[in-house]
């Protein structure tokens, strides 16, 4: 982050003032404060050697004392003023000396003191390590409008908790308290770290859950405690989350001074300890004492000593370092994009080729190419390969046909893979007429494998991204596939065979690609069977993405808009190239298994030729031995090349307290992260076992957790109980598991085509929590009676109606409802909808005239239409990711398949074989009570 602290004249410090949303500038020597940035007066202070510890009177070190004092003040002052009686008791007495020993001791001016104190109190506490949050907390807040049903024992446990930590365990009865969709938007349980765990008072010292979250926000000290709780321990990481407007950008450390632990290679972070007068630091993972690098306190830009406490890596949990040459195997390579475009009859007829070329043409400017280094090539294929030579500077291109697909060769050594800027005219001309060139192509069949090999040959010495646009099953050359779809085996135990790769080509080729730093994206368009399960292997092991547009037809403008939008976003996405990811954790914690799109190159190193934005990875963690530290640290490091040709390291750090108390474990469980992990595990199980086993495993896991909770946290113990107890923060877990069981990827059904299932599974394993949760638990709004302010622009953008529980009980015959799962939006119109409503929203005279199906909603000249459109627009934009959901109008008495599809999103209803939420809960209760007799 370009903090003004770095551009200040010496003797000044900048502080972010939360209440005024601007920097406050402090002259450290006189404690004078002002809002305007100070200007350097006169000559800068003579440069001093930063390596030796300067005398404590040096002006630039007044800042150190300040922070130290500020910290102590924060803990005490805050505890007093915010009147948290329990917290004061918890704060250990001898702590105030600790920072004074670590930092250069000295007296700070009184004025400064107060300033600091105000500063810190002014900041809304974010993670609770500074002071108990004043905002409604996850756990502490009572349930919505109801007093949580607590029994005596849980209460007792809760009291103990408060005395120790401040996290409180509330027990709810699942039988009497229905799930509330709004709970899914709550932040995970607070991370309450011991005081002084972090050297920085910054609210960003712990990673935001959108980057990295754990299934448990308090780590059990031993494996037996973890097994007792039955909750799986895992990390859910989205290291390269997109940063939208209004989000904090990731701070960048540009001076290539990277302090790492000598033994465990951990990057320096806010949880290390400075010892020996600040000359050494103690690693927070392995307790190794390391030297602080000589230039750590040095501002290399202005050649003068800098303030160590202003360094981004000591204040932010998510930082990016510019890596020096030691981190490079070779010089940073340019971003390379190769497009493999299917031009067979089916692709031309569906309009895919025309839409795709137009989208590429329109987005050429958005392809990340600031340094004019990006390279592009286009290969078209049906049963032969068509290469295009695009000489730089000319607007002519020539086509070279290679019909020998058994032994693929490049017809020309140069001009096939060209610089985007230099060959722009030729490229534009080619894209403009590519569709017309193959207008009358009647060839059926696809040589996808040879096309991939050609792309590989072209870029194998650079690496980059291959984007495949294919509308048919590969039938020729290497990697040819057979149509193995067989309606008879759908819904049987053999079905999982259809979800596994049919040909080893796509796995071995993926490995070759991974080695050559090539990543493959698959965009599939077939109207018939295309074997998505096999083709999705390539993106899966090369860290790409799969997008599937079943029965794509560009004649329908909705299809074309959706594809053009998503493809455009993919092209414009700033990707990370040549990435390797490694997660380090404190002693006795080990990363045991990995889920997501990457190739595991060694026991804990994940190779990703490119990292697209907003893909999520889940990593299971095992506790190997008893943990003695009061808190543990997880650090994810992604070494990558940016598409602007710079080698960088992105580091995401999360610190979590440990506990030996089972109630803390339950009170800090994060249901969203657990659901994300379970989705990954369930999909993996469908591939190695059967779909049925995956469903059973999901159900049994939930039963185990509930049993463990019942046995240890409630008065009933092992006996039967009329209640089904779970902690308040896990209340939504049963409904999320039910949603997962009813998801297209897992659901029991004989009607789901294997392609759709395989695509749903690809989504389940790659979507980040923000997108995954609506995907398994669709959002359901009632539009006809939404509050008048909904759909208008409020303080935080468009105000959304409040979500209803997804059940058809809430559907009304005269209503208008919206159901969305992040991939599709359904607008449900009741059969008795008044003509005025139809008129307002659709501009049609009556319900009878209205047609169901894919549609674009007209924006009409009335307030209600505009509000509905605003809600839909917001639904499409509010989440990260490239997806642009389709809008379907569903009439209550319309065509049955569409109606059933929309209704299948209401997951609390009863399906043909799947239970309703009430039945599911009673099944759970019987199971929990039954086997514990």
């Amino acid at each position, binding site marked *: 982050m370009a903090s003004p602290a770095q551009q200040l004249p010496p003797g000044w410090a900048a502080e972010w003032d939360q209440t005024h949303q601007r920097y406050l500038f402090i002259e450290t020597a006189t404690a004078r404060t002002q809002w305007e940035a100070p200007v350097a007066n006169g000559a800068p202070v003579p440069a001093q050697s930063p390596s030796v510890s300067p005398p404590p009177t040096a002006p630039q070190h007044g800042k150190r004392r300040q922070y130290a004092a500020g910290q102590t003040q924060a803990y005490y002052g805050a505890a007093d003023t915010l009147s948290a009686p329990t917290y004061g008791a918890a704060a250990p007495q001898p702590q105030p000396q600790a920072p004074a020993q670590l930092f250069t001791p000295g007296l700070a001016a009184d004025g400064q003191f107060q300033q600091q104190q105000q500063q810190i109190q002014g900041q809304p506490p974010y993670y609770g390590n500074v002071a108990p949050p004043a905002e409604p907390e996850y756990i502490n807040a009572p349930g919505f409008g109801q007093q949580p049903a607590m029994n005596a024992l849980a209460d007792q446990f809760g009291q103990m908790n408060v005395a120790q930590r401040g996290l409180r365990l509330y027990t709810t009865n699942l039988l009497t308290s229905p799930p509330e969709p709004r709970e899914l938007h709550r932040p995970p349980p607070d991370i309450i770290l011991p005081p002084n765990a972090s050297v920085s008072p910054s609210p960003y010292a712990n990673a935001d859950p959108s980057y990295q979250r754990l299934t448990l926000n308090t780590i059990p000290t031993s494996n037996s405690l973890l097994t007792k709780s039955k909750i799986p321990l895992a990390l859910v990481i989205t290291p390269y989350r997109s940063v939208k407007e209004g989000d904090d950008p990731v701070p960048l450390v540009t001076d290539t001074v990277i302090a790492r632990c000598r033994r465990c290679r951990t990057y320096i972070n806010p949880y290390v300890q400075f010892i020996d007068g600040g000359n050494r630091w103690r690693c927070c993972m392995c307790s190794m004492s390391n030297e602080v690098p000589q230039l750590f306190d040095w501002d290399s830009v202005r050649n003068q000593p800098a303030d160590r406490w202003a360094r981004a890596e000591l204040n932010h949990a998510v930082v990016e370092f510019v890596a020096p040459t030691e981190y490079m195997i070779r010089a940073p390579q340019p971003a390379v994009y190769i497009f493999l475009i299917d031009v067979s009859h089916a692709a031309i007829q569906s309009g895919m080729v025309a839409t795709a070329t137009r989208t590429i043409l329109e987005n050429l400017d958005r392809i990340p190419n600031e340094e004019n280094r990006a390279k592009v090539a286009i290969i078209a294929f049906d049963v032969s390969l068509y290469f295009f030579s695009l000489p730089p500077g000319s607007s002519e291109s020539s086509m070279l046909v290679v019909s020998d697909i058994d032994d693929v060769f490049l017809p020309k050594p140069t001009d096939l893979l060209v610089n985007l800027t230099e060959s722009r005219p030729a490229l534009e001309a080619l894209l403009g007429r590519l569709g017309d060139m193959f207008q009358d192509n009647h060839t059926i069949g696809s040589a996808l494998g040879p096309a991939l090999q050609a792309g590989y040959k072209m870029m194998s010495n650079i690496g980059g991204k291959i984007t495949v646009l294919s509308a048919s099953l590969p039938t020729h050359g290497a990697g040819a596939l057979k149509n193995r779809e067989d309606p008879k085996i759908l819904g049987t135990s053999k079905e999982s065979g259809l979800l596994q790769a049919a040909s080893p080509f796509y*796995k071995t080729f993926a*490995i070759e690609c991974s080695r050559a730093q090539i990543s493959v994206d698959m965009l599939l368009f077939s109207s018939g069977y295309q074997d998505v399960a096999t083709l999705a292997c390539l993106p899966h*092991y090369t860290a790409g993405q799969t997008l599937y547009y079943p029965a794509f037809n560009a004649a329908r403008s909705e299809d074309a808009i959706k594809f053009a939008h998503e493809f455009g976003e993919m092209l414009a996405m700033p990707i990370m190239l040549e990435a390797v990811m490694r997660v380090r954790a404190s002693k006795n914690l080990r990363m045991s*298994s990995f889920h997501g799109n990457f190739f*595991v190159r*060694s*026991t804990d190193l994940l190779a990703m030729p490119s990292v697209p934005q907003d893909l999520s990875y889940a990593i299971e963690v095992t506790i190997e031995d008893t943990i003695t530290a009061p808190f543990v640290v997880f650090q994810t490091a992604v070494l990558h090349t940016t598409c602007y040709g710079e080698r960088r390291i992105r580091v995401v750090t999360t610190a979590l307290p440990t506990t030996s108390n089972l109630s803390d474990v339950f009170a800090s469980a994060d249901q969203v992260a657990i659901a994300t992990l379970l989705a990954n595990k369930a999909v993996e199980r469908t591939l190695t076992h059967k779909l049925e086993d995956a469903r059973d495993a999901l159900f049994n896991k939930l039963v185990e957790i509930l049993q463990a909770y019942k046995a240890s946290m409630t008065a009933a113990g092992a006996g039967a109980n009329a209640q089904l107890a779970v902690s308040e923060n896990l209340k939504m877990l049963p409904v999320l598991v039910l949603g997962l069981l009813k998801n297209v990827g897992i659901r029991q059904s004989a009607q789901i085509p294997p392609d759709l299932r395989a695509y749903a599974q690809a989504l389940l394993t790659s979507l980040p929590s923000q997108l995954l949760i609506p995907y398994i638990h669709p959002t359901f709004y009632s539009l006809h009676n939404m509050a008048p302010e909904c759909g208008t622009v409020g303080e935080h953008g468009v105000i959304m109606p409040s979500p209803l529980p997804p059940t058809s009980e809430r559907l009304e015959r005269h209503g208008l409802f919206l159901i969305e799962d992040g991939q599709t939006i359904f607008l449900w119109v009741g059969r008795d909808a008044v003509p005025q409503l139809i008129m307002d929203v659709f501009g049609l005279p009556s319900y009878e005239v209205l047609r169901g199906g894919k549609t674009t909603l007209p924006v009409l000249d009335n307030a209600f239409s505009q509000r509905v459109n605003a809600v839909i627009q917001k639904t499409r934009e509010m989440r990260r990711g490239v997806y642009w959901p389709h809008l379907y109008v569903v009439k209550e008495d319309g065509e049955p398949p569409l109606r059933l599809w929309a209704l299948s999103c209401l997951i609390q209803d009863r399906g043909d074989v799947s239970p309703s939420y009430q039945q599911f809960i009673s099944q759970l209760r019987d199971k929990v009570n039954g086997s514990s007799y």
Partner: protein
Amino acid sequence: MGGTGWLFLFAVLMAAGLLFTMVFFIIMFSDLESDYINPIDLCNKLNQFVLPENIAHAFLSLLFLISGQWVAFLLNAPLLAYNINKIRGGNHMYDATEIFRTLPNHKKEGFFKLGFYLLSFFYYLYRMILALIQESE
């Protein structure tokens, strides 16, 4: 030296060879665990030996069958059936993309086969000596 003697002499040599192959496999797996080799190289190397090992074992079992050594054949039959089943299922080769997930199973299998070949080595040796003694009497 008669037929039985030669047969078991051959079997002893084969068992020794198979024993070494298994030791090699297990060493490679532990190399992988401690990051001395990457999974792609490991799978390329090991996959060359999978089929020869299975064929050698099947050939030995076949020899026992034709020469009427029922006990020796029955000892080998379970492993033979296991190998055939794996090859029919198409999952006898090591898959670099899955290797870390399946590594514990591979190691267990490796150790089991190692033990089996070791025991059969001594059994063949014993049978060979027995055959030689019987001949000389």
